[in-house]
């Protein structure tokens, strides 16, 4: 016997949304139960809503959806690896499927690359004269329908965009995971998709750091030069500023990566200043703070108890506003050289949602070979991962506590 969970959401109070079976072109797999609901008011003056179809899944459909906006390719970034690692287990591509799939699956999480929702493949974009950054190259209707379906416990056949061939490959089946992460250029662009997100993050890399990183990434490639790297960034900038950048005001957390202020005129992008901008008042999310919540703190941990090598470490914490929202900002400039620096810093941070003392350090050490493991990018990505775990546990415990209301006869 299948159990259908009826959540006490507003949509079930008055009318039931009726969904038709087999929307095959959108790739849905549905198991449906039809409930007939009689008006509870005597005298028949209440609205008779007729038969309601409630979509059920056989399992526990409490998928938490996280959005990550990043301009760095999909599903393979170190942020995703750190995040899935917090939940345990390694994230891998779907076994035996398309080898060029962008999807990553672990025990608890599935990471979907939003490039899979390109409506135009590489040739199509060339013909129409639009970049991948342009909303016209993406099918937001499909994105919304499928994320909504997965969130409500229904598996979908999601297209695959092949970055090697530049073509759209046949779809792959995505089963609803406990946590769905949608990563890409436009997770917060469409309002309907935005409303499905339980938490959203924007990775904001400053122009100087982006340039330095792309040099490291591309200089070894035949064909590339400083000029070509620069030209590529400049050519994409107008579309990036128009379509991608505006999403940051919607994010619950922004990780901003800037050049360091500790070394004058540093342009190597090696030492970084990283700011974790956390929105206040987000459900199930309590911002990380230093020493005294809501106050403004400047902290240099290096001194008598802790010796650091050049250029050292500098922290800042305080309240601020960001695009009209109340936020708290935690900032780290510099880098970790030794394990004890990391654990010293961790012991002074509050609200980091660890399950035991030293968990942040342990996670950072587990992936010491990942880029960013010695600076704020790795630290804040790990902390955000722990906050997401905390958010997930809060959401799932609050849902199981809600009583199941059977229809009253």
């Amino acid at each position, binding site marked *: 016997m299948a159990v259908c969970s009826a959540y006490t959401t507003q949509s079930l109070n008055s009318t039931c949304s009726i969904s038709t079976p087999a929307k095959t072109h959108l790739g849905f797999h549905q198991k449906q139960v039809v409930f007939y609901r009689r008006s509870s008011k005597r005298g028949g003056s209440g609205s008779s809503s007729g038969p309601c179809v409630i979509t059920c899944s056989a399992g526990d459909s409490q998928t938490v959806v996280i959005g990550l906006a990043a301009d760095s390719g999909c599903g393979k970034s170190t942020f995703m690896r750190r995040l899935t690692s917090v939940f345990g287990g390694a994230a891998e591509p779907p076994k035996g499927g398309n080898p060029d799939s962008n999807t990553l699956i672990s025990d608890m999480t599935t990471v979907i690359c939003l490039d899979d929702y390109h409506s135009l493949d590489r040739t199509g974009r060339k013909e129409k004269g639009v970049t991948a950054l342009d909303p016209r190259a993406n099918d937001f209707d499909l994105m919304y329908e499928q994320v909504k379906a997965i969130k409500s416990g229904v598996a979908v056949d999601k297209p695959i965009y092949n970055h090697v061939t*530049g073509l759209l490959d046949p779809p792959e089946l995505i089963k609803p995971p406990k946590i769905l992460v949608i990563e890409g250029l436009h997770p917060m662009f469409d309002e309907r998709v935005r409303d499905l997100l339980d938490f959203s993050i924007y990775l904001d890399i400053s122009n100087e750091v982006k340039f330095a990183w792309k040099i490291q990434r591309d200089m070894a490639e035949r064909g590339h030069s400083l000029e070509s790297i620069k030209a590529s960034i400049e050519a994409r900038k107008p579309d990036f500023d128009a379509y991608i950048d505006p999403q940051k005001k919607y994010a619950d957390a922004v990780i901003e990566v800037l050049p360091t202020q500790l070394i004058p005129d540093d342009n190597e992008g090696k030492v970084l200043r990283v700011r974790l901008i956390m929105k206040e008042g987000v459900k199930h999310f309590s911002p990380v703070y230093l020493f005294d919540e809501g106050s403004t703190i400047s902290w240099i941990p290096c001194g008598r108890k802790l010796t650091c090598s050049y250029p050292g470490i500098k922290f800042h914490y305080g309240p601020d506003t960001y695009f009209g929202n109340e936020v708290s900002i935690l900032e780290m400039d510099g880098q970790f050289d030794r394990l004890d620096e990391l654990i010293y810093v961790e012991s002074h941070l509050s609200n980091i949602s660890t399950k035991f003392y030293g968990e942040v350090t342990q996670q950072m050490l587990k992936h010491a070979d990942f*880029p960013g493991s010695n600076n704020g990018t790795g630290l804040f990505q790990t902390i955000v991962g722990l906050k997401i775990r905390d958010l997930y546990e809060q959401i799932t415990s609050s849902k199981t506590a809600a009583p199941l209301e059977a229809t009253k006869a």
Partner: protein
Amino acid sequence: MATLRFNSLTGTLEKNPTSSFSSNPRLSWAYFQCNNKGERRASRMTVKAMGAAKYKGTQMREKKLTEMIEKKVSEAKQVCEGDETSDECKVAWDEVEEVSQAKADLRLRLEIEKKDPLESFCQENPETEECKIYED
């Protein structure tokens, strides 16, 4: 007599590059300047090491992406000669970015996961062309 001076870009030889999105800790640049009868010649040497690719399919992808980067950069330069602000120019550089990132992703995967991305595919389909073991 020629003197050889070797400068390497600091930091790029460390094991932990700081960028989340760069992926090549074994990259090094060397500038060689030869002083020979007052003539100076500077040449640049780049060394690239990738994690070992095991299957032919992965080696083919690497090769294809490398070629595409080169090809698309020169296409973009051509297209943009006329009008740098044109849509065609934008799209051309966007394609360069796409394939550059795809190559970097493949490189990162080989290094971090230390196994061939085709591993699980080839367990199930060992007879395909892509799954022949690549021998250099």
